[in-house]
């Protein structure tokens, strides 16, 4: 049988490749972004409860109402934006599904979508499946900031969407208030839709704050804002997230969502609603929790050959290894996994153009012992 692949050049995602390699080599896996500790006990207890109590059939297509209401309360409280739980909040099985649906719902054949490299690897395939074309703009290393003049030059009649990711995976950079001002200036009076991947919204450090598109009326009115419970409650395997968008955009997103996955998992949504009601401040403690882990890991690498600028957000830390090796980053990650027994993620796989710096990405969402053990192995380099 012959199949004309729609994505002929796309292999298995780098996260799966590196996780498998880590397992084969018995390496500490600081590659794929998932915690090696569990979510809150009460949250897990609520899931068990709802499974046992028969909350096991389809939920409403947009998500369990009680959860949508909790999400709306959170958005009102943290971002001062009143949103309708009915018409602006959609619960999805994983933030990646919402990203996919938002792109499918709004990008047409021939449309251009601006992404910033290094870009999370799910964006481009979705754009291509929608018939669109991805325009890659490089973030400026080593701070990985957006060059707004470059964005201005890239915008044309065909520009349909700009995908923003803050806090940014894999670089750990965050958008500043000025960035939002520039962005608003660029999209004002255009038909450009914004897709904001804000799944690390609570992981922002050093007194900085998350600059959500929800904060600004003229940005929100054209935005899909996507977040994830997996990152927030340490349950990445629950694959549950949500998308906030104005009613017109939400309606378009839901048209696609209903035929991609239709719904998320019922008892998980009930459990999340209970947990959010019981511990509305849980998300506010995350920044302190993860900043301590970041500092532990970065401090343990002081004196090693890695050059490190502490991450401003996410649970990822980039490390410049140019003083250690002149391998390319993919080879470096394989070597680190096989020889040093610490798995990392190469970031060139998230870039269309070659990088001027040599970086690997470590995930510090790990127990302190795991981080110290990994850092000890890396520090000898």
């Amino acid at each position, binding site marked *: 049988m012959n199949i004309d692949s729609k994505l002929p050049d796309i292999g298995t995602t780098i996260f799966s490749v590196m996780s498998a390699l880590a397992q084969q080599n018995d390496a500490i896996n600081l590659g794929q972004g998932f915690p090696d500790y569990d979510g809150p006990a009460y949250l897990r207890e609520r899931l068990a409860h709802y499974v046992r109590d028969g909350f096991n059939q389809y939920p409403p297509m947009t998500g369990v109402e009680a959860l949508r209401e909790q999400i709306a309360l959170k958005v009102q*409280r943290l971002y001062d934006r009143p949103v309708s739980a009915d018409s602006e909040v959609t619960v999805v099985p994983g933030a990646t599904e919402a990203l996919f649906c938002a792109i499918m719902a709004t990008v047409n054949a021939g449309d251009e979508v601006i992404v910033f490299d290094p870009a999370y690897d799910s964006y481009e395939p979705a754009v291509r499946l929608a018939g669109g074309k991805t325009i890659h703009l490089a973030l400026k290393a080593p701070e990985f900031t957006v060059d707004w003049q470059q964005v201005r030059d890239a915008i044309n009649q065909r520009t349909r969407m700009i995908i923003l990711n803050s806090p940014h995976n894999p670089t750990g950079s965050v958008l*500043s208030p000025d960035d*939002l*001002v520039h962005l608003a200036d660029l999209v004002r009076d255009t038909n450009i839709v914004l897709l904001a991947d804000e799944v690390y919204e609570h992981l922002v450090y050093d007194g900085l*704050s998350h600059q959500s598109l929800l904060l600004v009326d003229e940005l929100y009115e054209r935005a899909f804002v996507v977040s994830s419970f997996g990152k927030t409650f340490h349950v990445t395997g629950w694959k549950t997230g949500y998308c906030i968008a104005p009613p017109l955009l939400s309606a378009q997103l839901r048209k696609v969502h209903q035929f991609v996955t239709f719904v998320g998992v019922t008892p998980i949504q009930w459990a999340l609603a209970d947990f959010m009601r019981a511990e509305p401040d849980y998300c*506010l403690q995350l920044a302190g929790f993860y900043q301590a882990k970041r500092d532990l890991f970065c401090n343990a690498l002081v004196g090693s050959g890695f050059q490190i600028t502490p991450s401003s957000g996410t649970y990822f830390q980039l490390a410049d290894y140019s003083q250690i090796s002149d391998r390319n980053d993919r080879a470096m990650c394989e070597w680190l996994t096989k020889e040093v027994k610490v798995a990392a993620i190469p970031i060139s796989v998230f870039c269309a153009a070659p990088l001027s710096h040599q970086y690997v990405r470590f995930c510090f969402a790990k127990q302190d012992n795991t981080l110290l053990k990994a850092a000890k192995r890396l520090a000898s380099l």
Partner: protein
Amino acid sequence: MELHLPVTVATPAVECIARHCDLSRTRIKQLMKYGAVWRTRAGRTSRLRKASSQLCAGDELHVYYRAEVIDATVPKPVLLHDEGDYSVWHKPAGVLCQGSKYGDHHTLPRMARHTQNADRNNLLVHRLDRFTFGVCLLAHSKAVQALLSRLFATRKVEKHYHALCDGFPAQGVLPATVDQAIDGRSAHSEVSLLESSNNGSKLNVRISSGRKHQVRIHLASLDLPVIGDRQYGDPTDQRDLQLCAYSLGFTCPVSGEQKSYRVEQALLPPLWQTFSA
């Protein structure tokens, strides 16, 4: 008192301010309503009025408190004509056109809200000095504001001021044309005598440009300072300024109709009632 508070945790604005000063919550809500509380968010600073406002991490809150500004009282503006796209008001002396960081509750756009539909947008088209009274326009959409402002900027508005002065103009002084530049920019006024009595003189000043204090400066240059003008006339004059923005005439940029608006005699201060119209 000034407060500048960086916000690290999402908090209701009233609570945040209450924690940092001795003002009561009622007073704080009043400050917010009166425009003395500002918020910087996502690179933009704007007034925070609603008592229910929520602050987000990363916001910065600014409070500018002067009791004498908040507690001052001024007379109410009066609606003269409502044209839908814009309205025509009598601005009494004391009412401001623009607010300051200490508040804007005594500005014409804000006070107009209390006389009519509060959801209506009240946008300033031109300015009158604080102690000048008379005809002032408010636009009710940005588009109409831009159209009307353009008329003023391109000198397509027929503007007449009336001013009261002490004494009589010297023989042959009026009518006069004054072209004295103000702040280095051209200014043009035509001054004529309306009436003279034992109380003094009432002058008509037609201006095409609209420089700051133009009528006061140009009348002072003719040795006819406006009554109560301590800045350009007698510094010891304790009376109120007697300068009235008397009429505005223009072709309406929306309807194309010729429009002319003038003050209502009954709304003028007592001194003006003794002059016949």
